[in-house]
């Protein structure tokens, strides 16, 4: 495994025809962090990831392991060790799980290897299959996988791609409680060797697994810190709940999808799921 690298974003700005979706963001992600990026719909979370991965043009500076990323093409940024997933799982539906992973593992392959047939299962691919629990489905077309399995396949693809930074856009959306738990544990495991940034709306998931949190609102970083610090921040409560005073009343009920999740003590948790956030 290559050494850990962190992300250093300064003054990042993305505009679409006059509308500024990311408005001067400064963000530091320490090497090996498991950072959650939260914020209401339209806060600019996905756009931020798009800017870092080269999909949209941006101003400012994004340093990864000390090297500037802005201005590089998408595939070069990917080759420098950054992988991402998308809000809607995108795998190669017509190819098998194994083929998906083998392609993800292969950006560095030479001409001759490319022109030859794949013989068997490469070791890193086998390990990734095992890790994301898709070994039995290796030969199924990716298009036939269940929703959650596609998201695991995407994570598996990032593992074989051997990226040092994973940017995951809502990786547990649509998953059952058990699947979320498993995914969270997987992310914890991954972040022992890599830096992980997760965009999520599910606050319970965030509380369980975040090592640090950044809250984005209207294209700016509203708050940053540990889960407890962010939850205690009145500005965050304001954004999520309209105003802080209403907060305590609303915080009594846990998110409907997670009935068996214990409420954290302190009662400042903004126990809200994606559906609730959308009301803001």
């Amino acid at each position, binding site marked *: 495994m290559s050494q850990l690298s962190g992300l250093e974003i300064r003054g990042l700005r993305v505009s679409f025809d006059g509308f500024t979706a990311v408005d001067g963001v400064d963000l530091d992600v320490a090497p090996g962090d498991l950072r959650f990026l939260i914020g209401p719909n339209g806060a600019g979370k996905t756009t931020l990831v798009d800017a870092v*991965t080269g999909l949209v043009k941006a101003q400012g500076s994004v340093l990864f392991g000390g090297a500037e990323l802005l201005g590089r*093409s*998408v*595939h070069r940024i*990917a*080759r420098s060790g950054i*992988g*991402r997933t*998308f809000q809607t799982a*995108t*795998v*190669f*539906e*017509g*190819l*098998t799980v*194994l*083929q*998906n992973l*083998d*392609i*993800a593992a*292969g*950006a*560095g*392959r030479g001409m001759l*290897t*490319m*022109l*030859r*047939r*794949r013989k068997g299962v490469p070791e890193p691919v086998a390990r990734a299959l*095992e*890790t*994301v*629990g*898709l070994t*039995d*489905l290796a*030969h*199924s*077309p990716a298009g*036939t*996988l*269940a929703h959650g*399995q596609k998201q*695991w396949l995407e994570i598996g*693809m990032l593992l074989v*791609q051997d990226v040092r930074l994973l940017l995951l856009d809502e990786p547990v959306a649509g998953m059952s409680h*058990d699947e979320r738990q*498993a995914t969270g*544990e*997987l992310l914890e*495991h991954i972040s022992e060797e890599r830096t992980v940034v997760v965009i999520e709306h599910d606050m319970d998931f965030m509380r369980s697994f975040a090592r640090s949190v950044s809250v984005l609102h209207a294209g700016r970083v509203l708050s940053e810190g540990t889960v407890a610090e962010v939850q205690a921040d009145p500005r965050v409560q304001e954004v999520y709940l309209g105003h802080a005073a209403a907060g305590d009343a609303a915080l009594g009920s846990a998110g409907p999808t997670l009935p068996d999740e214990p409420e954290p003590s302190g009662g400042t948790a903004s126990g809200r799921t994606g559906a609730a956030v959308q009301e803001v």
Partner: protein
Amino acid sequence: MTLFKGAPAAPAGKSPSVLAGRPARAWAGFAAAAVALFALAPLALSDFRLGLLAKYLCTAMVAVGICLAWGRGGLLTLGQGVFFGLGGYAMAMHLKIADAGPGNLPDFMQLYGTASELPWWWRPFGNPLVALAATVLLPMAVAAVLGSFIFRRRVKGAYFAILSQALAAAFAIWLIGQQATTGGTNGLTDIQGFFGYDLDDPVNQRMVYFVIAAVLLLLIALVRQLIHSRYGELLVAVRDSEERVRFLGYDPANVKLVAYVVAAGTAGLAGALFVPAVGIISPAMIGIVPSIEFVIGAAVGGRASLAGAVLGAIGVAWAKTALSEEFPAAWTYFQGLLFIVALAFLPGGLVSLAGIVRRRRAAATALPSGGAA
């Protein structure tokens, strides 16, 4: 280490990979094709019919490339006539120079009397090795230049198809305009010899047929290897989700370029071998209409499958001869209809019918017995 102990087991356990080549079946198909081309056809067909088949096989060579570029790579190559023409003209220029004999101008140049000596760009084709290499390398080089321009600028889908068409049209128009050096609308006609062999001799015509059949099989084997290689898998990935491939660290432009260049090479070779088989190459054989016809065969047979594309190309070319003799006016419409029907209702082409029937039958037999596979 497995984190997903309780990972739900989806039904499909060991269904074969969608792209896994079935070597046994492929070898059987290959052997059958060889027997048909080298034993059955020469025995069963008259010299005239065998000559027609040679022509169809050239169309099939173009289809082999289209199968790779379009079927696997999603590049709707509606301008293969350009590369077919480059290969064809390269070959025909050499044969015309050879027919004329040392020191003489090709007949049509003498006729127009405008050129007193061979134009400079004709001269390299006087050398047989240069001409032979050019039939393949020239189209590939042109495709490499065009392709890197087109794919880097992310020209895709219908725009790519229209651009390809425009190139084919422009090339044909340019050839027509250069009457004195290209033969204009007539093209390069009345080709007599093929590397010292008299093409009027039926024995030599048979030899040309055998060369064409052998080259076709070779191209099929080559492209099959490409399709089943890692590159072939990547090409399908680019077809299905170019953006995703980019995020994995590949440049999709390069991936598409390889398929485009290989397809140009097969079309060039097809054009080159078409010339001794038919004795002529002209702008009418490389413009918009023939370019579309190349694609129709592959579409009808099944563009993503080599067998489908090749058989489709041969079948449609044969149908064209048979039907356009009887109903010359109706053929064009029928062909257009065929294309639309294939694209709209049977995107996998005729070969996909076999799969559909097999699946239906499997489902029918599996149901009553409880679905044990």
